[in-house]
């Protein structure tokens, strides 16, 4: 067999992207988020603020995550108990845990969109780390959705005050059980699901017995947000959220699952055995607002966030493939000079861009119409200087403000009566689409990146295989994509026929 001398059958002569050794520049905020720039131009405030947070997160990821993502993945494979606490402590300096809490609660007052963008950028390098940070946000969102202002303030204080000291406080959301996965997220399925968690009412509180599985952050969390039921015959009506400190008697972590990817964020089996939860740590719902509404409120927001994770991974796949192509040859010719290779890279970049548009669209919908519209509009104290917010009289006043029972009543009215079900459904539907579409696009990108790289794509050191292992989980958690689409049928398609 002889090599054809006619190179033109294989190779189109294309100029390289740049001289050898030249690295691609980081996009400016406007280049990466032109739709937000447009909104700002139209009069939406906070553009400069969002750009500031974007530049900060780029600094954090380039300095502390990008150089170590692969090394951490290997370390966790060898020692599943390894946690990069130094990175999490550094994340405190960037207010990644409390940033999106309103200033009045002691947080950073960051726009929620910026919080999700932060997670997207982190996910570009390590979606497991983004998940580890973001799942605390999921737990907080569950509590926020109940409008129990006293407990919202309690959690916000716990996280913010420790964050200032450089100590990351992690939360977990304990929802899934071994016999109930996706159907534990849909209150209409509760009666058919095999749910075993039970919280028995006793004097002064509840006694909780539960076995929860696949709990992200379970073994690391300082506080667990546990979904429970106080009446086995009426699950939806008797649903509760309990806040359980990890050090409570009866709380234990049975094991951490051996996952294919996202290893840095543990998925734990949590046992709650006769755990006493005092009344002041029980988030009782207004019975007009069932768990179904709560979950719809929360999941609309958090599934949009998963869309952000996925976009980060899609972007990461593109960058990984680009870096490989720029340094490699195929059939003796630099890879980037093959026309078909350039088209493949364009496909990868295109999908990342599409994914970004979808999740930002969902996040703006959720911030406009969903649960987060309430947080987004709580701008009290936003521009106040830090020293003022720390003054004891100001802190006492804000504490009294949130502790007042009237405040919880008002928040409930705002959240459940003022916001009709149709609006909440819109938000959830956007979240479903973002999560499914973005995770599918990211998965395709990771597949294609490895296909482009060939056998070298399967080598851990090149980064692409980790992305593929990590991305698959995005199609599964927060409900599998198939379940999300069934939810979309209910929240979107069926709504077309309701007057």
């Amino acid at each position: 067999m002889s090599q054809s001398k006619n190179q033109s059958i294989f190779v189109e002569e294309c100029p390289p992207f740049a001289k050898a050794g030249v690295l691609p520049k980081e996009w400016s905020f406007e280049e990466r988020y032109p739709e937000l720039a447009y909104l700002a131009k139209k009069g939406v405030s906070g553009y400069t603020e969002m750009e500031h947070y974007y530049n900060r997160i780029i600094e954090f990821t380039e300095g502390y995550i990008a150089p170590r993502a692969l090394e951490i993945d290997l370390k966790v494979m060898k020692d599943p108990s390894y946690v990069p606490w130094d990175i999490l402590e550094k994340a405190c300096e960037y207010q990644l845990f409390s940033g999106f809490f309103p200033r009045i609660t002691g947080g950073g007052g960051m726009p929620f969109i910026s919080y999700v963008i932060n997670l997207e950028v982190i996910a570009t390098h390590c979606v497991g780390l983004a998940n580890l940070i973001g799942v605390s946000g999921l737990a907080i969102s569950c509590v926020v959705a109940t409008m129990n202002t006293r407990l919202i303030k309690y959690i916000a204080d716990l996280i913010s005050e420790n964050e200032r000291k450089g100590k990351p406080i992690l939360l977990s959301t304990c929802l899934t059980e071994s016999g109930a996965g996706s159907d534990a997220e849909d209150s209409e399925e509760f009666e058919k699901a095999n749910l075993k968690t039970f919280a028995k009412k006793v004097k002064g509180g509840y006694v909780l017995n539960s076995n929860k599985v696949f709990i992200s952050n379970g073994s690391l969390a300082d506080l667990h947000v546990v979904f429970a039921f106080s009446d086995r015959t009426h699950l939806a009506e008797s649903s509760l959220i309990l806040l359980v400190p990890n050090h409570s008697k009866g709380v234990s972590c049975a094991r951490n699952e051996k996952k294919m990817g996202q290893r840095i964020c543990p998925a734990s089996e949590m046992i709650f055995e006769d755990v006493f939860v005092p009344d002041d740590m029980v988030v009782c719902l207004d019975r007009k607002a069932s768990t179904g509404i709560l979950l719809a409120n929360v999941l609309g927001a958090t599934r949009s966030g998963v869309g952000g994770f996925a976009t980060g991974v899609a972007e990461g796949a593109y960058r990984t493939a680009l870096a490989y192509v720029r340094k490699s040859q195929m059939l003796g010719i630099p890879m980037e000079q093959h026309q078909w290779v350039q088209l493949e890279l364009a496909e990868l970049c295109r999908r990342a861009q599409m994914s970004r548009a979808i999740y930002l669209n969902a996040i703006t919908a959720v911030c406009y119409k969903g649960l987060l519209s309430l947080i987004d509009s709580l701008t009290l104290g936003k521009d106040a200087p830090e020293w003022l917010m720390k003054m004891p009289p100001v802190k006492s006043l804000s504490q009294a403000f949130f502790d007042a029972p009237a405040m919880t009543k008002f928040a409930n009215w705002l959240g459940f009566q003022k916001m009709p079900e149709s609006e909440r459904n819109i938000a959830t539907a956007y979240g479903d689409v973002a999560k499914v579409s973005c995770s599918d696009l990211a998965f395709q990108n990771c597949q294609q990146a490895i296909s482009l790289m060939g056998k070298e794509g399967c080598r851990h050191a090149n980064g692409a295989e980790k992305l593929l292992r990590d991305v698959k989980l995005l199609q599964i958690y927060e409900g599998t994509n198939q379940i999300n689409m069934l939810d979309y049928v209910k929240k979107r398609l069926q709504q077309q026929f309701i007057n």
Partner: protein
Amino acid sequence: MDQETQSILRETLEDWCNAHKEQWLKELEAYQKNPTFPEALFNELQKLGILDILHTPETSRALDLVAETAYTLARYSPSLALLVVQQNMAGSLLASAGLDAPDGWVALPLFDHPQEWQHYLKAQKTNNNLCYSGQWTFIPALPIAKKLMLPLFHTPEEPNLLIFVDYADAHVKYDSEYQRKPVEHTLGLRGCPVGDLTLNHVDVLEKQKIMTGARCTQVVTTLWSQAEVYMLAIRSGILQSSYAHAQKYAAQRYQGGKIIQEHTVMKKMLSELYRDNASLYESWRGILMSLKPENSINDGQMGLALSSAEKLSGQTSNGIQIFGGNGYMEDYEQERRFRDAKQCEFLLGHPQIKSISLWQKNAA
């Protein structure tokens, strides 16, 4: 191969795999976490008679025996299936060269297409000797092999050369000349160790040149072409295993008040997996019915092989979806099938290079 032989072979291998799941197969899959390859495995497989099918005169034309072995082993361990196929391919080449069957694992660059071979190592003529330098990456079995076989094609002065290196040979300075470094972590096929080979100005000895010239080209490229069927069989084994486990899980797991296979969305997913599994199985069996031992596969058959490689990871990904969260956990093994499936996409070369090469042959 008649039905009875096929059944006996399949049952024998299934019994062996079931009996040795804990002893060999789990140990094999844990190789990258604990890099100690089970030494006795080679002898165990040799006793089964599956390592030198293509070397033994009575069975050297029985491509279907190798394919059936690959399929059955791949249902339990695609890594093991690949090692066995590779060993048989090496045996076939040695038989063509009139040499004895190897007494240990032979490393062979199974992740590369003949179009790619010439670009890895550079040859120089020095003092009437051919001297090679360069790097050849991702060679299966290299870290554990006693011997190495490399097709060195399109070299100046001496085109199309097959060399056979014995690492136990005192003349081979493998520390400095044939350096091998294990690839520590890969996406899939973790039970089949792979390594990178670096040659530093190595003079190829005459005794190492076991085949040359046009005959070498013909034997090697025909073997590589026929090997597409073995790889199809491995992929088919992976998909069969993915479907079987998904079906079993779906028949037992409750969700929404009924077993999940009663949900129509699940029926759709399982039916698609079953359909793809059935068609992939028929594809390699169909090819074997018409393939003669002295021939390469035809373009249509090559097209089938390429399509199967491209689709398999998506199909096994759906296998994970059926399991939900459990599908992502190592304990259920469905995630391993997905990882192995993806890595199998690159067996015998980069898919795009193979596609273009196939078309170019037709266009010419």
